[in-house]
């Protein structure tokens, strides 16, 4: 469950605004760091593999002779991977990259639609300004101080980063065929605890289960771990003969 974030409100003909939570400097930095590692490793990987093949021995030394094969096969692809990573992937992945996907963010236009190709390419052209004087200082500072957490490239291209919630799933309680006996908000809490059950420590899940059972079920909250789980599951089942 997430608290509402400051976001982009897009007007709709239905009268219900589309709400897109804007990603902050933290999510941006996280996405960028992942992407930077990916492109660096890919470019280095290509260079090392291609240089070893080109040299035919255990050497990464660049060619000193006038050989176009060195440029076309070793240097240019490695540079292309490193320099064109954002340009190509953002176009191909509809304003996303592996790093952005991991951070759960995506580039959109200011009307909430997918950013155009021109906007995606323009925001990348402005990276040279955002990266000044070093370590993306300009971009980071503008992302922190602006209301919509945008860097110069985003300002110029009319884009911003929003949380995508691509994997947002309905809680089990909402997907149940019949309405549960609990208040839906409480049912969500119980369903979420059951979903996270395997990833929690025994102490944590016992404590949380007892709290929820104590609050929503008039049963004895004592008992073994298995029975706590069973009782939580029972809470989510419809009452016998309950009307829809």
């Amino acid at each position: 469950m997430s608290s509402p974030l400051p976001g982009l409100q897009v007007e709709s003909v239905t009268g219900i605004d589309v709400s897109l939570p804007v990603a902050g400097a933290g999510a941006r930095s996280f996405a960028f760091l992942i992407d930077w590692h990916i492109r660096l490793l890919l470019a280095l990987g290509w260079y090392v593999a291609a240089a070893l093949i080109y040299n035919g021995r255990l050497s990464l030394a660049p060619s000193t002779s006038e050989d176009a094969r060195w440029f076309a096969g070793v240097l240019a692809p490695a540079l292309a991977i490193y320099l064109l990573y954002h340009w190509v992937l953002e176009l191909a992945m509809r304003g996303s990259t592996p790093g952005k996907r991991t951070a759960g963010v995506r580039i959109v236009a200011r009307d909430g639609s997918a950013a155009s190709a021109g906007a995606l390419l323009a925001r990348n052209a402005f990276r040279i300004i955002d990266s000044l004087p070093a370590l993306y200082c300009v971009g980071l500072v503008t992302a922190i101080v602006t209301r919509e957490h945008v860097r110069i490239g985003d300002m110029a291209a009319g884009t911003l980063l929003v949380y995508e919630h691509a994997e947002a799933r309905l809680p089990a309680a909402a997907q149940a065929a019949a309405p549960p006996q609990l208040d839906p908000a409480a049912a969500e809490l119980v369903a979420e605890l059951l979903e996270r059950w395997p990833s929690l420590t025994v102490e944590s899940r016992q404590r949380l289960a007892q709290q929820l059972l104590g609050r929503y079920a008039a049963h004895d909250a004592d008992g073994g771990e298995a029975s706590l789980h069973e009782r939580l599951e029972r809470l989510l089942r419809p009452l016998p003969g309950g009307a829809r």
Partner: protein
Amino acid sequence: VSGAARRHALTASLLARAGLWQQADARARRFARGRGEDAAEVAALADDYRLLAHDLARVRTLLPESRTREFLEAAYARTHATLHHGAWRAGDALLTLLRDDIPLVVRQLAPYIAWTTLLFVLAFAGGYALVHRYPELIALFASPDLIATVERGQLWTEGLLNIVPSSVLSVQILANNIVVSLFAYCAGFLFGLGTLYILGLNGLMLGAVLAFVSQHGLRTQLLTFIVAHGCVELSVMCLSAAAGPAVAEALIRPGPAGRRESFRNAALRSGKLLIVCALLLVGAGLIEGYISPNPRVSLGVRIAVGVGYWLLMLALLSGRLFGRPARRTAL
């Protein structure tokens, strides 16, 4: 019925539609990937949109901080974007940019391009005239090493490939040129003064150096070196420098949209031109690294490459390279 019971009943009846929400979300995802062409499905998507809007409004009130709301917000946003803007196809988006957007930007920036080109030509002529009349002024524009080399009757480009391989030279040149172009563009934000300075200085230097090498009988060699890459490189410099003042004007005279919005529109418009400039400079860098310093390449080939690449640039900027008709007839 108590308020709580009523609220509970409303929420329960709302959640009973969860299956419909999931279907709507799946449909929107399918369309967003361009995998839905059926007219009935499109009509269903429009119905989904209304359903999601209605239910989201209720969930915002009944379950304001819940995962159900999070799911519905995402599904509604996705359906809204798909319905209003269609599927995203990277190839189509790129084609639209190159065939339609870039020529439009070039037409819009035509007055700026004309002015910056004129400025560059005047500065070039000024630099040439200055050094032609007062040869000692070359010290203001060129390094002592360059002056000494030319005075020995050699060009600084001779034997360049003996020092740096073509591959490294190309990368150095294209990276440097792209940075200079972006800098010229950004300098234009300073109310056009930066452009005036950078273009003026570059024009003066080029004119001065050409006059200086002419005095030492090296003009043909220099032009032979420049012709293959210079046509596009100099044109791109004027193009990128023209984009900067366009943004500056949006800041000075923002119009009814406001300064921020005008800046955004102008920067996006001119940013598209910069992308083409960067692409062209990559090609120019490769030519400058592989063809220009290579003494085995004849003058005829150099001219063919230079003129051919320049014509390619024109075709790219006019959109004809990607099938844009030469003239559009009004309907």
